[in-house]
């Protein structure tokens, strides 16, 4: 079975061929190298993985399409899909490559200040909205130079994680 694993920050997805050998044993081929892997899933998203005698304790956390993997102190994030899932996804990309940039709330909190209004021209790095969470004020900045085309943030309102705040185009 073939999976495509795309690591966050990497451009290309890497194909991984997986063959279940029964029990917790798998044969995995990636980048031309084949590994015999003993991968025991434990509770709470923990996995004990033995590869050529090396022991790796992996902790998984799913977040949307991605799974974060904590392994020997390093965190990597992967989006893993088989071919069927990949096809399902083709049509769903929400934004075109260039143009619109959505700024969302990086954590739950309270909008304490909106620094722009619809139609404003903004520079890259210019402050758009100030969100307070855990007694810290965090200024969210524009990812690009452009114009504010939509403004969802309202001063004094509480926002959830990933709430849409501003679109810069």
């Amino acid at each position, binding site marked *: 079975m073939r999976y495509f694993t795309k690591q966050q920050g990497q451009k290309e997805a890497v194909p*991984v061929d*997986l063959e279940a050998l029964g029990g917790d044993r798998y044969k995995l081929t990636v980048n031309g190298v084949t590994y015999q892997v003993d*991968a025991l899933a434990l509770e*709470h998203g923990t996995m004990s993985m033995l590869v050529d005698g090396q022991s790796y304790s992996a*902790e*998984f956390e799913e977040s*949307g399409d*991605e799974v974060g993997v904590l392994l020997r102190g390093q965190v990597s994030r992967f989006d893993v899909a088989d071919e069927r899932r990949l096809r399902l996804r083709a049509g769903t990309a929400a*934004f075109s490559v260039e143009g619109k940039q959505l700024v969302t709330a990086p954590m739950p909190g309270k909008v304490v200040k909106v620094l722009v209004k619809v139609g404003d021209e903004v520079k890259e790095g210019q402050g758009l909205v100030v969100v307070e969470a855990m007694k810290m004020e965090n200024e969210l900045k524009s990812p690009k130079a452009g114009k504010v085309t939509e403004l969802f943030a309202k001063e004094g309102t509480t926002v959830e994680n990933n709430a849409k705040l501003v679109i810069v185009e």
Partner: protein
Amino acid sequence: MPKIRKVLVANRGEIAIRVMRTCKELGIATVAVYSEADRSALHVRTADQAFFVGPPPSRESYLVQQRILDAAKAAGADAIHPGYGFLSENASFVRACEAAGITFIGPPAAAMDAMGEKTRARANMIKVGVPVVPGTTEPIATEAEAREYAQKIGFPIMLKAAGGGGGKGMRRVEGMGDFESAWRSAKSEALNSFGNDAVYIEKYLEKPHHVEIQVFADTHGNVIHLNERECSAQRRHQKVVEETPSPILTPELRAQMGEVAVKAAKAVNYVGAGTVEFLVDVHRNFYFLEMNTRLQVEHPVTEWVTGLDLVALQIKVAEGEKLPLLEAPTPRGHSIEVRVYAEDPSRNFMPSPGKITYLRVPGGPNVRDDSGVFPGYTVPNFYDPMISKLSVWAPTRREAIARAQRALSEYVVKGITTNIRYLKAILAHPEFVEGDYDTGFLGREHTTLQGVEDPKLSEMALLASAVYAHQRDAKRARTMPGGKAGAADASSGRISPWRLALRSRRR
């Protein structure tokens, strides 16, 4: 003064638990207070009694003196321990406790008055000959005046909240361009944190170390110091890593600074636990910065090397007992504390409140975890993002660093993002290992401290993620036969990197 039988802890989180642990060991009953956001918090369950004090914002709950006092009366508490933050440095609260006939476990109001407002503290220290950093001795009324003064002493300068410490309401300003936003946010944070938006200006020293001296005084006029803590690993003036002994102090400098700290405490007739903070410059001159008239977050490192329980000592002093020692003990071995925050260092340290779905705390020799959380607990977004303090002891600094690294490697927190990896990067950084790191260290090395990827580990993680996806899909196929495994793709949360590339990258 009579023995204390029941203590109300006017705080939350790890420090509330910390105080209650000692009370329990001393056979003293404990009373918790909690806001609406803290009904499920651990300190409520740790206490023998618990009283509701208001809505989530601390200004409407933990900072409302009358509610705290009402709870103390309802519970029949004979003393209040304020922890740190909140009402811990509020002289009017000390007076209110006194009026209500409740022992405040902390310094007398007069000492707080003398040290509480930083500008007044500076003036008092100048009077008794304690060296201070150049700056205004009074809060500054208007932004215009502030700009003028800053121009006069020269940038960089520090804006500081007059009403409290802990890094809140503090801003370093490099020049006129940053002035407005720094002024606004310092005042607003000061108001939120201390109910007082007064701000003053200090000259910013180049490459200074933040070294503080723990002092303790009893009601019989005995004042001692318990050596120093090195707290230069700071980010936005928020301490991240603390240690004792300080790697830059000689025994002579320790004795000198200790003597000055004792002098400072004596000058204000101090009683109880306090900390005199100094900046130490590259020439090893030291300047009084402020005095924190309460227990510090980082007190465990002092406990490790002295064998004392500072909370127990606070209670003894509040009961009128004499200090059990009359001079600073020689530090035994080395201790390091790291603060575990619910924040994401790779997203500019954005706070990361949310539910802790899994928690594994380090164990083994000479490791101490002071935490206020538990698996299944939702970290609320109203309060400080510190969820735990991990501290270690070892005979030498080198061994203490190795032990802290080992302990951090055992720490697993799922459901929220923490700074654990960042803490490991700090401890591994050559500047930290070498021992001469100043308060600019973390800011200067920000990029390095984000870490580099080990491609071998990434490959192993990739293999793990493929098996994980396989097992997950197999399980889904079993639980919803004919269902679309891909349906979960549409759920919220972090977005696919294929899509993320189409979206903004926030800095």
